[in-house]
């Protein structure tokens, strides 16, 4: 279209240029014609033909006068003189006149003329002389005139011929010019005709465009009228010029009612009106734009009924001729905003759910680990007492099983972390034989209980030291062996380990075979899925979560291995697994771990712990290692004590009433007390890595898991206190608690009973302070499990939960249930 227009315009320009050139040419030619016509009309020739003939006539007049004077002697001679002068005058004209100058260049004209003039001049003395002489010379004069006659004739004829030719040339020239004029006029007419055509076509196009414009306008109107968005057009003062049907619908107003009214009074809510007016004033004053041309902006609009609702709008300026217009596109986004709000709420709920899940997981870790802590701690203490060899063996079995349970808890956490993608392999150098033997040892009693024989052995060349995630491998095998024991009665369970040769990386295959009930073929495919149990005569009596093999599968896969099962119903099963292992060198003794013997003793240690039992256990261990222990019950107490005197080491529990361990650590670090740079080690059952990050962020130096292990504690002490100058000397300091040798456990038990009784008495009075109820219930709950009263613990945890929710009716019910649980609970005992 544009290209065609360009061509058309170029064509028009060419035609115009052509027409102009024609006009110039015609002007030049007309000038020529006028000049020639003027030449013709001004005709310098004075009718030269006549003049030339006249010369001959006057010559004859002169001749006649002379002849007459000869024949009639009495005739006066003046006529002769006059005729002479007249003829003479004529020859002068021919000899001098400018129009005869081209003629005089012709010798055929000039020579006779000069001859005639000479002869006339020769006659002058006679003519001007005395009359008698003239009369006497008349005959002679007549003779001379007769001689001149031929000359005069020649002058006339040559002259006439010359001017006839000249006339011809003039005519030819004029004819040529006129012909040219005609040609150019013709061209001009053609150019004008072409221009006329062009003008006609342009007019047609204009007409066509006009129609197209009308169609486009109609189309635009249709679009405006059917637009789902409100379109409002105002002038620069904000007076409404157009208000499309969508705008009418959204704002509940009619175009005829709002035309020329100020937009601010119609659709802008009152609280935005002032800002709107200021904006319009700014725009009017200096064209400043804050909303206009800024793309989509979220604002609020107002309906006719005063309802304010969210809109999304875009305003642009437009020019309609000289007039500037503002065009606003508005969209009612109240539905969208509502949906967004719902989404945000849903997301917040989901996030809260996630948070709750994470907190639940942390709680679980804490709450399962606390009683385990008790068991393992007591086992550690019991190892130091005098035991019979049988008791020592049972001790070792119990300890292994306890540690396995702890790892099992860790494994559940691992699954959770595995699922959340936070899992990482933790490979270490392990002696496979020891691992197997420990496993078999720990499970032997269970196997014997079912009348089963349990044994293990290498097939082929043993590979003793390997790099493998031993904790997982142990858990996998424990699961498989545990299952085998569960489903086998009076049978045999054998574990075979075999290195697969060759292989890069090296792989080990471990097979756990039993002579048990076996698994139906149809069930084989699903037993590795979560929560899958197999209905079975034997298993019904033992039950299970159905999680075990799912965890096993995950771990094997995470270790880059594979697992499978072969089974015949009624004959037994063989679970096999293949995992890559890296053969390793036997690690040097105590590699990486500092010898406990190097650990300094007589250290001043601040122990911060709210749970009495845990406190007591840690206290016993530390005092047993020869340290002086200062106790603090919560974070606030810890800060107070730490501000008074320096310590070599601070062991800080995290979850505590009044002030938690993290806050206390921050306060000690940021305060100007003597312990701002002391090693502060977190002491927590929460072993989640993200928890450890949190501890480090709060300024804690390291982490010590519960239950407290002598070896780990020794490592910490060596790491932070060996070779350091002692921060504290014994002189002038008095530990708050001295070493207790006499039955500390019994004292603890008595204390637990008295505290718990006190709690229930207090609760019976239904105290107002629900927070206090929650705190005290939590505290006792933490101990209840350790004293073999899980029912009390559950009931108190419920009390804590309800107390925190603040629902007093539920609280009364929970307290009553807790009272019942307390009464029904077995005698509290740490030993059991």
């Amino acid at each position, binding site marked *: 279209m544009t290209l065609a227009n360009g061509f058309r315009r170029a064509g028009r320009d060419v035609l115009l240029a052509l027409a102009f050139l024609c006009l110039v040419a015609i002007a030049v030619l007309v000038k020529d014609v006028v000049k020639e016509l003027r030449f013709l009309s*001004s*005709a310098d020739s004075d*009718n030269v033909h006549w003049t030339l003939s006249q010369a001959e006539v006057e010559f004859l007049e002169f001749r006649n006068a002379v002849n007459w004077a000869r024949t009639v002697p009495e005739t006066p001679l003046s006529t002769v003189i006059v005729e002479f002068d007249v003829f003479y005058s004529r020859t002068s004209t021919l000899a001098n006149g400018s129009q005869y100058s081209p003629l005089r260049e012709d010798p055929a004209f000039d020579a006779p003329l000069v001859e005639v003039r000479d002869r006339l001049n020769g006659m002058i003395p006679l003519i001007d002389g005395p009359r008698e002489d003239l009369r006497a010379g008349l005959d002679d004069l007549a003779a001379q005139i007769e001689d001149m006659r031929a000359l005069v004739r020649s002058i006339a004829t040559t002259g006439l011929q010359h001017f006839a030719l000249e006339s011809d040339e003039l005519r030819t020239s004029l004819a040529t010019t006129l012909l040219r004029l005609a040609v150019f006029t013709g061209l001009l007419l053609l150019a004008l005709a072409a221009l006329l055509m062009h003008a006609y076509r342009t007019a047609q196009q204009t007409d066509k465009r006009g129609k197209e414009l009308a169609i486009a306008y109609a189309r635009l109107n249709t679009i405006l009228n059917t637009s789902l968005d409100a379109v409002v057009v105002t002038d620069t003062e904000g007076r409404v010029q157009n208000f499309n049907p969508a705008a009418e619908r959204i704002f509940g107003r009619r175009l005829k009612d709002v035309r020329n009214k100020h937009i601010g009074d119609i659709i802008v809510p009152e609280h935005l009106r002032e800002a709107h007016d200021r904006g319009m004033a700014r725009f009017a004053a200096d064209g400043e734009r804050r909303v206009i041309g800024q793309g989509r902006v979220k604002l609020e609009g107002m309906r006719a009924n005063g309802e304010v609702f969210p809109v999304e709008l875009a305003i642009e300026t437009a020019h309609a001729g000289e007039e500037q217009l503002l065009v606003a596109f508005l969209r009612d986004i109240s539905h969208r905003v509502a949906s967004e709000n719902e989404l945000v709420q849903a997301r917040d709920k989901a996030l809260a759910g996630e948070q709750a899940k994470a907190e639940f997981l942390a709680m679980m870790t804490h709450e399962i680990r606390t009683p385990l802590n008790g068991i393992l701690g007591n086992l550690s203490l019991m190892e130091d007492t005098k035991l019979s060899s049988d008791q020592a063996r049972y001790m070792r079995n119990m300890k292994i099983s306890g540690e396995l349970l702890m790892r099992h808890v860790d494994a559940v956490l691992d699954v959770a972390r595995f699922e959340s993608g936070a899992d990482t392999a933790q490979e270490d150098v392990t002696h496979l034989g020891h691992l197997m033997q420990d496993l078999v040892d720990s499970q032997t009693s269970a196997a014997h209980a079912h009348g089963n024989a349990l044994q293990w052995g290498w097939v082929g060349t043993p590979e003793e030291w390997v790099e493998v995630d031993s904790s997982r491998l142990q858990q996998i095998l424990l699961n498989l062996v545990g299952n085998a024991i569960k489903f086998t009665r009076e049978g045999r369970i054998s574990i075979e380990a075999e290195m697969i040769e060759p292989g890069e990386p090296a792989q080990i295959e471990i097979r756990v075979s039993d002579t048990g009930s076996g698994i139906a073929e149809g069930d084989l495919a699903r037993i590795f899925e979560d929560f899958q149990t197999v209905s079975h005569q034997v298993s019904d009596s033992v039950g299970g979560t159905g999680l075990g093999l799912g965890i096993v599968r995950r771990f094997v896969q995470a270790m880059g291995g594979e697992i499978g099962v072969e089974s015949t119903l009624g004959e037994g099963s063989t679970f096999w697994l293949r995992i890559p292992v890296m053969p390793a060198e036997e690690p040097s003794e105590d590699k990486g771990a500092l010898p406990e013997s190097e650990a300094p003793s007589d250290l001043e240690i601040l122990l911060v712990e709210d749970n009495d039992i845990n406190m007591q256990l840690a206290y016993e261990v530390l005092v047993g290692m020869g340290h002086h222990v200062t106790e603090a019950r919560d974070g606030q107490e810890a800060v107070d004590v730490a501000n008074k005197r320096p310590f070599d080491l601070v062991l800080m529990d995290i979850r505590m009433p009044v002030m938690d361990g993290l806050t206390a650590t921050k306060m000690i670090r940021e305060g100007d007390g003597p312990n701002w740079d002391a090693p502060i080690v977190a002491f927590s059952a929460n072993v989640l890595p993200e928890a450890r990050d949190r501890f480090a962020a709060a300024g804690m130096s390291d982490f010590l898991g519960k239950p407290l292990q002598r070896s780990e504690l020794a490592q910490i002490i060596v790491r932070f206190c060996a070779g350091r100058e002692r921060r504290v000397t014994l002189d002038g300091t008095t530990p708050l608690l001295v070493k207790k040798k006499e039955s500390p456990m019994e004292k603890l038990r008595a204390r637990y009973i008295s505290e718990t009784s006190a709690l229930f008495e207090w609760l019976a009075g239904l105290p107002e302070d629900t927070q206090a109820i929650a705190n005290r219930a939590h505290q006792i709950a933490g101990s209840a499990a350790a004293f073999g009263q899980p029912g009390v613990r559950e009931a108190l945890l419920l009390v804590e939960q309800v107390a925190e929710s603040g629902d007093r009716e539920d609280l009364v019910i929970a307290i009553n249930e807790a009272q019942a649980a307390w009464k029904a609970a077995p005698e509290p005992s740490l030993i059991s």
Partner: protein
Amino acid sequence: MKAGRMYKLIERFAGAAGLLLIFGATSVAAGTLEEPTGPVLLTISGEIENTNGEGTAAFDLEMLRALGATEVTTDTIWTPGTITFTGVELKTLLEHVGATGTEIDATAINNYTVVVPVEDAVEDGPILAYEMDGRLMSRRDKGPLWLIYPYASNAAYRTEVIYSRSIWQLDRMAID
């Protein structure tokens, strides 16, 4: 030829203007003119009001000079170079004799006659020249009187018609 017609039109307008002037000049009282004392150069007859003979007005050189000398400097197609002619304006002369006609039959000494319309007699128009470059014109030099139009100063005078009216060796004028 169109252009030629146009010039004729111009002449006619110019003539009409001249006529007006002539009529304006007829207020000069009819009467007798003084008698010529020298040789008579020009005799005017016909429709005139002022005479010094039998219905004629005869002029010698002195009488013509007395009417006021006008100079016309021009080239002509009959003479070489540029020439200054001295003479009396035709307009002045016609007013002087109280001419009332529309045409002048101007006749030369050899009875060659041309018709000059009275309209030609305008201010800065033709003169009856008696001097050429300050010298009286002899008969042999187209004297004694030569009707000269100012050809150089007005293109309208450079036409064949005007050239044909430029009569030399003039000695009689009859006003019709």
